């Protein structure tokens, strides 16, 4: 299973790569911003995308919209990564069509398990 991690923070990408790749046993590709994420998604055809909400430029929700508007990426499940743990925020993100929401800071040892649970895999 392949995951595309999208986050502008290198520290977050690093720890997510470790959690999903080395701990979780997934193939990991990365993108550092929204536009990059869309082209990587087309190229790499990941099984799901872990997408940061707050990024400069194209933010998470706009990136999701861009992914949804391209038929090559439309059906890839997206899990949001957000630092805002408010229920209202989580509801909002789900309504946009996310498969799930993971709150930061996440636990690096259990991230892969949580993502699998969200995706039902």
């Amino acid at each position, binding site marked *: 299973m392949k995951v595309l991690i999208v986050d502008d923070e290198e520290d977050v990408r690093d720890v997510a790569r470790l959690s999903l790749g080395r701990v979780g046993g997934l193939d990991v590709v990365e993108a550092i911003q929204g536009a990059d994420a869309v082209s990587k998604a087309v190229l790499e055809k990941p099984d799901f995308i872990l997408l940061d909400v707050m990024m400069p430029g194209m933010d998470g929700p706009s990136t999701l919209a861009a992914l949804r508007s391209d038929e090559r990426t439309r059906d890839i499940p997206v899990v949001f990564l957000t630092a805002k743990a408010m229920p209202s925020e989580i509801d909002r993100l789900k309504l946009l069509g996310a498969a799930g929401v993971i709150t930061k800071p*996440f636990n690096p040892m259990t991230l892969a398990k949580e993502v699998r649970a969200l995706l039902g895999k």
Partner: protein
Amino acid sequence: MENDEDVDAALAELRSTFIRNSGKRIEDISRLLEIIADGSGNPQPLDEVMRRFHSLAGLGTTFGFPGVTSIARAAELECSAGIANGAIVPQVLDRCRVAVERIQAELATGGMPEPPQRANVEPRSGPIDVVLLEDDPDGHALAVDQLERHGMVVRGAFSRAEAIRLIEERLPQALISDILVPDGTGYDVVEHLRSLPGGRIPPAIITSGLQGFIDKVEAIRSGADAFFEKPLDWTSLIRTLDHLLRRAEDEAPRVLYVASDLDHARFVESVLESAGYQVRVAPDPNHLDFDLSAFRPELVLVDAMLPEITGRHLAPYIRQKQSGATIPVVILGPPDVEEEILSIRAGVDDYLATPVDPRLLLAFVEARIDRSRYLRNLIEHDGLTGLLTHSAFMRRVKIRYDERSRKPGRPPILVFGDLDHFKQINDKFGHPVGDRVLMSLGALLRKRMRRSDVVARYGGEEFAILLDDLGIEDAFRLTDRIRQEFADQEHRDEAGAPFRVTFSAGVAPLRDDMTVELWKITADQALYKGKAEGRNRVVLG
């Protein structure tokens, strides 16, 4: 999967990178704060400061620094409030500097070597899940009908054992239990609920078929929040349940402390924070306006003697603002009957003599906030539909409008709706039937809208919704889906004959050059366009 030691080593390396990068983030913040302090009042650098705090908050706990996460998150909120106010208040800079120092201190401790095992539990959303225990079949059916009418989902039980099984299967968001059931009592069930992990949160209501039968002491002891005797007054039962649910869900109550002595303030702060309150200490009453609007406290504590003013003089000042009219104000001061009398006359709610016992302080604060939330809830909600009232809605709209500059991104969206030909329904079937239609619309809106959406009964048969963080297309689709769902609903007149009702709605996003007035007019015009085009439709304004 690699072996644990390799992962641990890699994690340790990332951790040291994080600490190194955080040093740099902290340097950036300090530098930016200086620029702001010197500078032009341009809010741009504060945005950058906020981003740095955001990163620190998002990463701290992952690497074993939960303290960094909580300090940085608070600082991030301060910044966002600071930006909202346009001109940056010096206080925000001071608080950021304090946060920087505290974060440095946290990082210096080296943190916890093992990050805490924390489950990312997602809060539930959607309709309220209620477990109902009622062994009388008629009473059971009536209760299910009433609760569902208010947009709740009911899991019904006819015995104590069955109720306990349902609760254990999945923790409900509320419990309503009759007192006497064949195999035990409602008290047992409440007590059982309370003993489960997380079981203290769901509201529990006890009902009784006999007047004077409820042993209130026993009910309280078991952990029930309220009790009702039959015949049940469903309006007040649902209203109470609503209030309890809101309390269960609400974010931590906010207490503002206008303090003269910072050491004492830290003490009070830690007492309240340890009980789950959010506390903001305001050392300077001159900034009270800012603190009231940015922090929106639910209770204000004031020291009797402040540097330039007597504490009680702040009470009328807080009260004169509409938003402050219902905020309890409590003075902390030395035992002094004269001062106490003057304070009460000035409109202060309580005078607590210092040194105050922490337990007394907590009891006071909790009781005051709970009461004021209950009253606000009564005042702000329409009794028939449970939706917000017109004035409460407009207050939220105004708050959201004033926040527009600090919330870049998607604009808020206003939806105005109006039932089609509602007057004819009232004329033809009578008002009780019309009221039921309104109730079912209220229930549908509450069921379908997110908890964060603001939904109001705007006028007789008009409703209004304030949507946030949603694209205009999604807002339109959402409204249209509700329109369709409502149009498909079958209502019944007094004789049981079915009929259908539709509504029209206008959807208007806030645009840059709009005043609140123009925004409302735009939504209104879209609504009337929908009416003119033949009703039962949603129109974009």
